[in-house]
């Protein structure tokens, strides 16, 4: 986040006049444990939502209670008790948070140090009760003013529900319907935070939008909902997450991201996911069940997902593209690292509906320790999708002999003009490679990091510069202790 901090400071200098920020409710309020219609009503009221949204939530909830938690993924974990979770908790008061970095887990601090994160930023990330958060509020506001001049809307999803009801009603749930799947339905019922982005016609968003500017609201991670709309001929690059591991008390995460891409528009969505993976023995760690989907509705529209997944104990995530507009393009670039007892079942779906649509899938899975890493993908070519193309490349890298890599590709072609290519490889970091690096003076960790970064190069180079350098370091850190 070093470069982000710089950006932040620059923005801060530019417009330090904007001191008003998000409306923050600091009362300590908690909904009772468990989930029922009252709790949903409570959340909706807290967020001062319009009635249609409450109805929408309730409909999702009523659907959700009839649904079963899916078990087709190659994941083994104890199913969460959904009645034993708080679905709404106001931000923690300063009393409950660490007073200084001295009270923070030294292991976490060591990681921050390796990533080169400033002390001030460490405090924010570790949840230390400091006023820095208020800085970020003002910065975010400044940032928003700049965007506003271009007509770009970048705000919390709750705010959007109040301020931009037409856009919200039109697009919310239009890509991921409320009852799309078990976790999406749960999210639709209880989402408490998230981001709304609208890029108007013909606008190229002047800066990379980062969730980092919106972290003033606590518990952002748990049931996050993101909606991005790129109107005709617009462009936006959106960065989600942070290379630094964030502390989070909530074990269950179920986020939904919807992207709507209209005529000739392009959205680039980059994620670095680094939630707590659990300890070396597999205790603790975040369960991450994410539904991400983009609809390329316009002709020649384009969406590109790039993800670096290093965190979470359980990852269940398939960022997908519905290629509806003729000539639309979907891309998926993924690095998923699992170490120790982490399990990841991740991949993508490319649904080709329009003519001349094309998709590219590059997936790099790395397993170490006792981890399991699965690529699961679907390429579906519908009957009217003339002259479509797909290229898929799935590479797996194993470190040690107790981990697993699995590739589960589905290809369904209903149009004979389609060209679909699939390549898959599995390799190991060999002793020879490791010794070669050691003999040239690199230590074990540097060597693994170098080899793994080389393996992931095609994906890493898709990341915006802001992320790329730190993501590279992160790959090495995530695999620490996996060899030797």
């Amino acid at each position: 986040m070093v470069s982000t901090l710089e950006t932040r400071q620059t923005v801060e200098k530019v417009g330090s006049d904007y001191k008003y920020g998000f409306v923050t409710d600091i009362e300590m309020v908690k909904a009772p444990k468990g989930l029922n219609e009252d709790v949903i009503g409570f959340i909706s009221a807290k967020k001062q939502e319009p009635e249609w949204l409450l109805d929408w939530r309730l409909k999702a909830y009523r659907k959700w209670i009839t649904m079963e938690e899916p078990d087709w993924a190659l994941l083994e974990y104890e199913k969460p008790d959904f009645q034993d979770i708080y679905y709404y908790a106001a931000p923690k008061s300063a009393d409950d948070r660490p007073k200084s970095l001295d009270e923070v887990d030294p292991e976490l601090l060591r990681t921050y140090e390796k990533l080169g994160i400033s002390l001030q930023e460490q405090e924010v990330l570790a949840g230390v009760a400091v006023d820095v958060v208020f800085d970020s509020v003002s910065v975010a506001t400044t940032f928003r003013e700049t965007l506003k001049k271009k007509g770009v809307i970048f705000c919390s999803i709750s705010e959007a529900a109040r301020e931009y009801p037409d856009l919200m009603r039109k697009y919310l749930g239009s890509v991921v319907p409320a009852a799309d799947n078990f976790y999406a339905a749960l999210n639709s019922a209880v989402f408490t935070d998230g981001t709304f982005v609208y890029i108007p016609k013909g606008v190229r968003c002047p800066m990379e939008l980062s969730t980092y500017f919106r972290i003033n609201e606590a518990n952002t991670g748990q049931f996050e909902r993101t909606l991005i709309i790129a109107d005709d001929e617009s462009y936006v690059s959106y960065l989600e997450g942070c290379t630094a591991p964030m502390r989070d008390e909530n074990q269950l995460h179920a986020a939904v991201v919807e992207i709507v891409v209209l005529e000739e528009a392009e959205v680039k969505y980059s994620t670095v996911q680094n939630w707590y993976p659990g300890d070396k023995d597999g205790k603790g760690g975040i369960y991450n069940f994410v539904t991400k989907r983009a609809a390329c509705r316009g002709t020649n529209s384009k969406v590109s997902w790039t993800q670096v997944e290093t965190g979470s104990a359980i990852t269940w995530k398939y960022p997908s593209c519905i290629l509806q507009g003729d000539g639309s393009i979907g891309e998926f670039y993924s690095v998923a690292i699992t170490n120790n007892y982490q399990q990841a079942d991740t991949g993508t779906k490319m649904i080709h509906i329009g003519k001349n649509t094309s998709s590219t899938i590059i997936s790099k899975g790395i397993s170490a320790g006792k981890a399991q890493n699965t690529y699961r993908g679907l390429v579906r070519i519908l009957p009217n999708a003339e002259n479509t193309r797909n290229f898929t490349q799935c590479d797996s890298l194993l470190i040690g002999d107790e981990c697993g890599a699995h590739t589960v590709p589905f290809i369904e072609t209903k149009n004979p003009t389609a060209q679909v290519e699939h390549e898959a490889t599995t390799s190991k970091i060999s002793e020879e490679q490791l010794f070669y690096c050691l003999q040239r003076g690199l230590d074990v960790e540097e060597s693994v990091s170098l080899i793994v970064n080389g393996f992931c190069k095609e994906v890493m180079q898709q990341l915006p510069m802001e992320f790329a350098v730190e993501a590279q370091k992160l790959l090495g850190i995530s695999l620490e202790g996996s060899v030797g």
Partner: protein
Amino acid sequence: MLEIKNLHVEVDGKKILKGLNLKINAGEVHAIMGPNGAGKSTLSYAICGKEGYKITEGSIIFKGKNILELEANERAGEGIFLGFQYPVEIPGVSNMNFLKAAINSIRKYRGEKEMAAVDFLKLIRAKAAELEMDPEMLKRAVNVGFSGGEKKRNEMVQMAMIDPVFSVLDETDSGLDIDALRIVADGINRMRNPEKAILVITHYQRLLDYVVPDFVHVLSNGKIVKSGDKELAHQLEKDGYAGLGIDENAA
């Protein structure tokens, strides 16, 4: 500079080196020859600290230090370089980045500052030119898609960049045509210097016409069975190992 005493090495429980003695002084070039399976590569791996090469007896002292206590990368930091018989491919990592990382790790080990990017670039261009390597190759992934000869030349570029005190060159001549052999040999000769030493492991006398050794040793069945000067290499070329009373298939 390097003193190996009574070295016994086992690999997967199999005894490969059985009491090897070798002393190399600064400024010297030694050549080790021997039939297949004599333990030539094992010797190079034992010196460099490869995992799985178990030292059951004996010692290796380098510049007064017992290097058996050091990890492979620490030995590299002390100034030991191995030119690999089969250089390894590292996909996605450019030669440039690899070497930069290597040099800076060694510098870090020695408590030195990192090499400035500009100096690094100048140096690597110069070294590539000396070894007649196309600068474009420097941007390519380490050894990926390189021919046998290109890989060996790349090893020499790495050696020139790292500038080690002691180089072990394991069958560096294999896979080279006559022109490449001369270029590589020139590269080795440039490393000759009163403060440095080189151990050339080779199967054939050919390389030794260009890199003239001060001493030649014959390794057979895990021990050095004969030592001499460059004439020994010629004698071997003429009479074969059998001429020395060594059964090439015994090992």
